[in-house]
């Protein structure tokens, strides 16, 4: 199972990604949300390991942090990490979704210095939040805008042809979709229908490539080394069963 270039199921995304996050000491509740975000990524035809491995690496290397603060600025809110690190997308994504639930639709939200913006996008998608625009400029100065048009449809508008999963280190802005008319210049537009994309994924499985091995390695940290004693007694049945 640990090899690259596999086709996995959505249930395996849930199983392995939850535990991969837990493997870098993310609390289990956040780990579950992280896995559900990755299911949404996979349902829409992306390799979930592509952006998620970087986010887990950042936490493991202490380049990012789960520490988060919130401040209210007039009509907008602001999430940031008060440590001198990236704000981990694993924490940013759940906090954003929670904020969307408790805020009014006209409010704006800024999130500073997020390490993996597409994970924040995927959390919004996984929680079926619609009528929102998420925009950011990444470290390569590429502009991205994701519009959640309704529960079925979303789109990516970007100034770059680079995979959106790989964008990193960005200040993000979340606004009402209808209030936003700031389209990136030289845009590439890609539209998605969640139902159709999910159906395709259910019939074909989820392709994971070279980053999968890293996800599996973090997952493996949740496994307990087997000893002669635990092998003999931990599962309750004998080593040979004949009758």
């Amino acid at each position, binding site marked *: *199972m640990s090899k690259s270039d*596999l*086709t*996995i*199921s*959505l*249930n*395996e995304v849930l199983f392995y990604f939850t535990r991969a996050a837990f493997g870098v000491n993310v*609390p*289990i*509740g*956040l780990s*579950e*949300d992280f896995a*559900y975000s990755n299911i949404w990524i996979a349902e829409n035809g992306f390799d979930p390991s592509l952006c998620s491995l970087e986010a887990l690496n950042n936490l493991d290397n202490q380049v990012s942090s*789960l520490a*988060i603060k*919130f401040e209210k600025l007039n009509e907008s809110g602001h999430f940031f990490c008060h440590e001198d690190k990236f704000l981990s997308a694993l*924490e940013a994504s*759940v*906090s954003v*979704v*929670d*904020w969307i*639930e*408790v805020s009014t639709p006209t409010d704006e939200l800024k999130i500073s210095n997020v390490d993996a913006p597409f994970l924040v996008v995927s959390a919004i998608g996984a*929680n079926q939040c619609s009528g929102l625009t998420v925009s950011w400029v990444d470290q390569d100065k590429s502009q991205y805008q994701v519009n959640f048009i309704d529960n079925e449809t979303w789109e990516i508008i970007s100034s770059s042809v680079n995979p959106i999963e790989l964008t990193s280190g960005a200040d993000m802005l979340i606004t009402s979709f209808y209030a936003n008319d700031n389209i990136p210049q030289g845009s590439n537009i890609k539209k998605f229908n969640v139902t159709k994309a*999910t159906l395709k994924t*259910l*019939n*074909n*499985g989820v392709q994971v490539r070279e980053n999968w091995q890293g996800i599996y390695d973090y997952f*493996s*940290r*949740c*496994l*307990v*080394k*087997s*000893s002669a*004693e*635990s*092998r003999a007694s*931990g*599962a*309750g*049945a*004998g*080593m*040979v*069963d*004949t*009758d």
Partner: protein
Amino acid sequence: MTADTVLLDIDSDFMRPPEQVMRLDRMGSSFPTRLSFMRTLIRRMSKENWKFERTLREVDKDGHGVSVYSASTPSRTYSLIAFTQEIPPEMRTDRVIAEVWDATFNLFDGIPSQEDIDYLANNTPKQEGGRYRPSELVLARANKSLRVFENVIASLAEGAQPDLDLLSSVGYLMRTTAVYGSGKFGCADRAKIADREECRAPFQMELLAVYLIRWFTIDSVEELAKERGGDKAVKLNTNTRQFIGVGNSTGLGMAPFLLKHPALIHNWVVAKETALARVRSIETPIQGTLEVFLKSLLQVSQHVDEWNVDDDVQAHRISCLTDEIQALRIWCEDESNIFRPYPWNGIYHYVEDNFSLECQEMIVSLIIEPHGSLVDDLADTMSTTLIPKFKADMPLTELKAIVKDCYQWATTIDFSLEESQHHFWYYSEDKLEPRFGSKGVDEGVEQEMPLAIGRDVHDLDEMLSETKDEMLIAEFVMLYPQFRHIIRRIQNTFLRPYSEVQDNLLGESMRPLDLLRFKLAFFGASKFDPRSDLWTRISMYQGAPMPEQISEPNHDCWSFPIVGRSQSYPCMNCKCQKAI
């Protein structure tokens, strides 16, 4: 009927409360009912007149090779692909860590091409070591019961029927040691098939695979006997064929599932408890039902006589059950005890007041049994598509009140005591085998599975008591992200009161076996045969109609079967009631 309709019955006076039902000792005394998932599947097969066919058998004289058995519903076909091989006896283990098996299987979504069979021939015998595709719905394996398998072949080859005592003591020819579905190892996700009519009830494809495996085992011994005995060989007689089930060996893997799907468990339990409440609330019994119940007591006595186990605790419970059924029969002979208003409620109360949990749960099953017309609709309410959501806008005061009102069973456990946190659950690196460890003895506490529901609620309650009421939950989890998991669980389960096991799952006296039996009974398993506190063998589909019998009028008359005979009385639920 929708789940909402079921909820209306929860407040019925005849409904047993969650604090009575969701206790480990009672859960560990469960029996299958007519709402169990195997029963539901067989009824559907009959109603829709499913067709069954062996479409391929390419095996050598020892039966090693590949076979395909298909089941066709009105709208599609499912195929069991079976690979068989010779394995050394000492390699035969029921554990997840096994490397080889007598037979390995996939349930294929459709009719497999030769290319599909070739692909699976390179993967299925490796089980967890292979990779599967969305076209595969189930992955499974089974080992022979060597003495029964050989005895049956030898007898049939000689033109004789097998030794019924031996057959009865085991109950099956092969024993499955894992049946995986729902996306395991690359197989199809449940979402791919969830909208299909025949997949709406829980675990229907897994249980279809098991049903076809049972047919495969019976077909195999008959074919091998013919190979060995030629013209002299005979087939199993109808009653013996029907008695033969398929075994299963179940370990800890089932317990985490139960704890990780609380909304689903609520729906299972509330359906069964609603069925019981509906029956108990009948003032004047439906004609013939009491008579059927009294006859079923006789049959169940024989069934229990044939339920032999090595485990001392279970053997004692079976012995008590035998005596209690006899005592109940005597009590029922006094007509004034049962021919009166609300007879089922009277019987239930008499049993609850006088007999063991094992007997109480057996009687629950028996009094529901004659009431198919009253309860079978509940089988449609036992699934869920709920994905638990975190509700950030819930006021903290509301969460505090919910914990106080609904989780007293957890907040009153003293987790400072060593015995209260004796155990932990973990996955071993050994093929991800789930294991149950003891703190201070086994390594791996740091990698504990998040299944300590009671302890987590207890810790949350303590933190909440130190937190001001004005705070929103969204703010609380930013400060204390370690509680996000348990808060989400509480938010999604407090309105589903039968979703939580109301006991300490880490306690020293905790027996995972109780969880296993509870879940297996909902599947429809019988003859629970504990091998330890962590492991049990069971029989599945014992007494169920064979494929060629699925359209017969008595297709639904197979609860608590006895060897060598079909049900000795007509039931109330299918066309055979005309025989009363």
